[in-house]
C-alpha cells in the first residue's frame, strides 16, 4: 500500500527580467523547468531514494513533498489527500502537515543557535497541541529515542558535535509523531563514522515506528544500504526507477550506468564485472 504518491509533478521557475526591462530590450521570458513530469509512489514503511547530481531537481521535489513549495503542475498526495488542494479545510491541512516532517542537510543551519534543545523539541509539540501538560517528559523521551540523554535538553546546539546535532534534528522531526519523513542529504555534512551512526539510527527508527522515508541524496553508496526503491533524476526528469538490488545489478539508463561507474569503490579491482 502506498502512502505517498507523486503524479506528473512539475515545477517551473520564472527567471525572466522584470517586465519593463523585457519591453525595452525585447528579451523573451526565461522559464527554468526544475522538475519535469515526475511520478513515483512510496510504500508505507519503506524508503524511497531520489538520486541525482547538482541541479537535478531533487531538493525541489523535497520541498514540494513537504509543502514548502507548490507544484506548477501535477499533484503530491499523502494517503490520498492532496497537500496543495485549495479546497482543503484548514483543520485537515494542519492534521496532514503534522504527519510530514523534514530533516535538513546542515545540522549547523537548521537549529536555532539561541534556543535550548528542550525548546527546539517542544516547539512542534506546541504547534500541533501535542503532549499538553507533559512536554518535559515527551522531550526526554524524544532525546532518549535518538540516543541522547534527558539532561541534553538544557544545553544549546553549539555544545553538540555535527552528528549529535543531526540527532536533535531527527528528534525534532519525530516530535509531531509523523508517518512520513523527508531526509534531504541528512548525512552529507557528516564524517564517515558519524554518518554510519546516523544512518543506522534512521533505520532503527523506521523499524520501530513504521516510518516512511523519502531520501534525497547525491551519493549512490549511501542509498545502497538505505533504500528499497531508487529513482534517478537528471535535469529534472526521472530517467530510471527500479528496486535497489535490481538497479545496482542491471542499471537500464546510460546516465545511471555512468553514475555507478563514476562512484568510487573500495575495491576497484573487484569491479571488473561491470
Amino acid at each position: 500500500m502506498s502512502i505517498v504518491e507523486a503524479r506528473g509533478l512539475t515545477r517551473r521557475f520564472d527567471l525572466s527580467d522584470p517586465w519593463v526591462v523585457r519591453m525595452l530590450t525585447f528579451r523573451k521570458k526565461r522559464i527554468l523547468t526544475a522538475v519535469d513530469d515526475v511520478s513515483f509512489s512510496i510504500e508505507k514503511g519503506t524508503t524511497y531514494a531520489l538520486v541525482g547530481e547538482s541541479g537535478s531537481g531533487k531538493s525541489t521535489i523535497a520541498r514540494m513533498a513537504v509543502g514548502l513549495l507548490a507544484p506548477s503542475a501535477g499533484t503530491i498526495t499523502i494517503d490520498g489527500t492532496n497537500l496543495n488542494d485549495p479546497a482543503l479545510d484548514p483543520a485537515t491541512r494542519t492534521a496532514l502537515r503534522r504527519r510530514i516532517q523534514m530533516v535538513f542537510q546542515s545540522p549547523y543551519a537548521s537549529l536555532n543557535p539561541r534556543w535550548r534543545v528542550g525548546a527546539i523539541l517542544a516547539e512542534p509539540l506546541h504547534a500541533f497541541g501535542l503532549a499538553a501538560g507533559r512536554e518535559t517528559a515527551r522531550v526526554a523521551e524524544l532525546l532518549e529515542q535518538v540516543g541522547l540523554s534527558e539532561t541534553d535538553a538544557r544545553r544549546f546546539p553549539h555544545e553538540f558535535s555535527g552528528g549529535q546535532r543531526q540527532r536533535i534534528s531527527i528528534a525534532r522531526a519525530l516530535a509531531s509523531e509523523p508517518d512520513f519523513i523527508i531526509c534531504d542529504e541528512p548525512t552529507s555534512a557528516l564524517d564517515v563514522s558519524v554518518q554510519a551512526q546516523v544512518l543506522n539510527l534512521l533505520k532503527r527508527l523506521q523499524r520501530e515506528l513504521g516510518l516512511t522515508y523519502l531520501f534525497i541524496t547525491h551519493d549512490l553508496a549511501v542509498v545502497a544500504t538505505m533504500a528499497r526503491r531508487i529513482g534517478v533524476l537528471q535535469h529534472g526528469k526521472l530517467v530510471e526507477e527500479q528496486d535497489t538490488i535490481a538497479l545496482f545489478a542491471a542499471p537500464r539508463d546510460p546516465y545511471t550506468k555512468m553514475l555507478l561507474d563514476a562512484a568510487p569503490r573500495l575495491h576497484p579491482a573487484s569491479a571488473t564485472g561491470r
Partner: protein
Amino acid sequence: MSAAPLLEVRNLRVEFPTRRGVLTPVDDVSFTVERGEILGFVGESGAGKSMTGAAIIGLIDPPGRIAGGEVVFDGTVIGKDAAALRGKHIGMVFQDPLTSLNPLKRIGDQLAETIRLHLDVGAAEARKRAARSLEEVGLDPGRLDAYPHEFSGGMRQRVVIALALAAEPELVIADEPTTALDVSIQAQVLGVLKRICAERGASVILVTHDMGVIAETTDRVAVLYAGRLAEIGPTADVISNPRHPYAQGLIASTPTVEDAAQDGELYQIPGSMPRLDAIPPGCAFHPRCAHAMERCRRERPPMLEGRAACWLLAEEGA
C-alpha cells in the same frame, strides 16, 4: 636502494597556543613521498590531514607554528624558506576552485603570471606554456581569454590544477580537490591528477575524507586520527587488511555501491573523534577501541612494523 625520496617528513609537530592551553593538531607525524607516487591522507574532520599539508609548504597561520620535526624536500631541509618552494617546486590545489581563482582576471593571464613568476620566460613563451597547461588538464587552449565564471565547477577545478602545475612542480598537494564536485566530474578531475603523475613523474599528496577516492587514486595511504598517524601502507593492503582498529572501523563504516544489501546495518564506531583540547592519554583512539588494553590507556604506541601505531601489533609479534 633507489634514489632518495622526494619528500621526507620527520616527527612533524604543529602547535596552536590558545588561552586554554596549547593545541596540537599535528602530533609527531612522519612519512615519505617517493618520486612519481600518489600518497593519500585520509581521516575525518579534525584529524590533522589538511594541517599536515599546509605545514609542509609553510602555510600555517600564526599563532600556529611548527613546533618540532623537519621537512626534507629533495635533500634539503625546508625551514623559513618554504615560500620559495611554493608554486615553483610544490603546487597546491584547494577544495574550492572559486576562491583559488581571481574572478577579475582572464585565466590565461593568471596562468602566465604564475609561469613568469617562477620560470625565466618572456610573455609570448608564458602564453604558449599557459595554453599547453590547459591542454594538459583536458581543457580547450582556445579558452585562455575566458574568465573563471565562464567555466563550470569541474572545469574551474581543472584550471586550478593547471595553475598548480604551470611551473612544473615536483610535488602537488591537493587538499580535498573534488569534495565540492559531482561524482561524474570528480572522476574526471582525479583522472587528470593520475595522468599527470604518470606522464611527468610528479608526486601528489591527495588529502581527502573519502575512502573510495583513496582506493581509486592513490598508491599508498596514511590514515590520520586526532593529529596522529594511525596507519600507513600500500593502499590495496591497507584497505583489504587494515591493521589499526580505527582504520578497520573507518573502512567498515564506509558505505559502498558494492554492498547493495537490503537490511544490513552499517558498521559503526562508537563515540566520535576527541576534540583537540581533550585528547586522551596513551593511544588517542583507546576510548573507542574494542581491543583496548591496559597499556593503550597509559602509553602512546609508536609506529610498529612501519605500518600501524597500535599495541596489538606488538602483541602479535611477541
